[in-house]
């Protein structure tokens, strides 16, 4: 059965410690079910993507759904947890295992961490106090020195995405967008990454309904979905951390869809930090190695550019509730492809791509990466 995207929904994204995790999920699920035009009884499997749970969150969400007995499981692939859950749903529908799958991505970070994510003490580099912005800063510093990437080029990614986010009513950061100078003047987190180049941790949930072909003109074709685990980050390779995992997933996704990078109209990618968007776009084939930093300053990835990237504002604006990020990215691309993005709408919107990359395990080139390509039938 050819997998189709039937519906999407999200909660607001932001610091919501006073809101129950289940309420974030129910808000997203209700919207997705309405969007798909189905009754809850049509859902025949539930797949949840979450990093920090809480453990059992899937069942606690079930309490409000009245869907006893359907197969259900939770997957954890770091920041790619939500899209990993989606990938499993797509594969299940493709193989005919289920006809209609509810995908849920959720995390509530504000009740866990008061600032940056505390590194995992069982990890060799987590135990050595390497924070995630530090990990990305090491890649950024490599690019600064190897390819001459400038602080202004890094900052341009933050300016673009935070400007886009002003038009996203569900984004966490919706104050005035900063200038390049303001991004660079914000306090240093890990050189060369300043505060405004780091996504805020956030609370939020996103839901996606995946099913087969049913002749509904609003459904979107899922041309490709590829999920890869991390591999050895071999110090003999020329790749910076993270690059190869995204490239592996992208290669599979383009092959499945029979498309080239130039055919993608609009993208939502994993800009947890400014350098993340730059490396990802190189790995996705939008720019040669070392040239990805030119895409934001040139306007290529602007909302009115040739290939808009993160029209939602990305993680840098929407915030990053780990498991809740991938499903929000899919919701944005669905909104764009259907021409329903309002002030955020991009001009060309027939083919969209979502990329989510999770990382943090020492010695690996990522924990996992998912790339999916959707199109208007």
């Amino acid at each position, binding site marked *: 059965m050819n997998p189709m995207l039937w519906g999407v929904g999200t909660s607001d994204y932001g610091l919501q410690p006073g809101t129950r995790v289940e309420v974030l999920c129910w808000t997203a699920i209700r919207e997705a079910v309405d969007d798909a035009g189905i009754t809850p009884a049509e859902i025949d499997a539930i797949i949840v993507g979450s*990093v*920090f*749970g*809480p*453990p059992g969150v899937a069942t606690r969400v079930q309490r409000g759904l009245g869907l006893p007995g359907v197969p259900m499981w939770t997957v954890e692939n770091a920041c790619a947890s939500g899209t990993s859950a989606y990938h499993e749903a797509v594969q299940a529908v493709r193989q005919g295992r289920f006809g209609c799958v509810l995908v849920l991505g959720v995390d509530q970070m504000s009740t*866990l*961490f*008061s*600032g*940056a*994510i*505390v*590194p*995992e*003490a*069982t*990890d*060799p*580099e987590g*135990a*050595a*106090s*390497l*924070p995630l*912005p*530090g990990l990305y*800063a*090491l*890649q*950024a*510093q*490599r690019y600064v*020195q*190897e390819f001459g990437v400038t602080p202004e080029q890094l900052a341009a990614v933050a300016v673009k995405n935070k400007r886009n986010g002003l038009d996203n009513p569900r984004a966490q950061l919706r104050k005035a967008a900063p200038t390049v100078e303001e991004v660079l003047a914000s*306090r*240093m*987190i*890990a*050189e*060369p990454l300043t505060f405004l180049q780091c996504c805020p941790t956030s609370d939020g949930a996103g839901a996606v309904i995946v099913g087969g072909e049913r002749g509904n003109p609003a459904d979107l074709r899922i041309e490709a979905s590829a999920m890869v685990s991390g591999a*050895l*980050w*071999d*110090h003999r390779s020329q790749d*910076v951390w993270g690059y190869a995992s995204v490239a592996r997933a992208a290669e599979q996704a383009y092959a499945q869809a029979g498309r080239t990078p130039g055919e993608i109209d609009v993208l939502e990618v994993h800009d947890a930090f400014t350098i993340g968007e730059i490396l990802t776009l190189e790995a996705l084939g939008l720019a040669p190695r070392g040239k990805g930093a030119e895409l934001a300053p040139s306007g290529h990835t602007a909302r009115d550019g040739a290939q808009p990237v993160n029209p939602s504002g990305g993680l840098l604006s929407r915030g990053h509730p780990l498991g809740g990020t991938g499903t929000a990215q899919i919701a944005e691309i669905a909104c764009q492809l259907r021409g329903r993005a309002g002030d955020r709408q991009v001009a060309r919107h027939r083919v969209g791509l979502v990329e989510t990359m999770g990382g943090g395990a*020492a*010695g690996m080139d990522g924990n996992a990466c998912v790339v999916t390509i959707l199109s208007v039938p």
Partner: protein
Amino acid sequence: MATELGVGRPTKRRPGAAVGGLPVADSRPSLVDGQVGGVRCTTCRYPVAQTGIPWCPACYGPVEPARFAATGAAWSSTVVQIPVGTRRPPFGLAYLDLDDGPRVLVHLAEPTVLPLGARLRITGLDDGDLTAVTIEKGVEK
């Protein structure tokens, strides 16, 4: 007042004893007689700064315990300006490609961004973390 992680609020994340959580087994590379401990593949010689792995992650060949030189070249470096665990800013970190050895994360004795390829020597452990100094014209700084 935000709750400190690991204090009165158990989570899925193991923060470690350094910041108030329960102790966990140390997975950081060891330093033995001035050399970095790990394993090396007996087939392809791939070096890994970990122990207990079942086979070579590059070629699946058998691995044996190995010691690696404490010197190498900086692959990249940064200065972290936020507190992390027991570390207070600023503190310098680098990925160090050990001579004929693996890439390891080290703390820098001097918090500064280094040129790519800067020569470093691991001089010891600081609270269990590998710590390195730059070697300039044969003089350790």
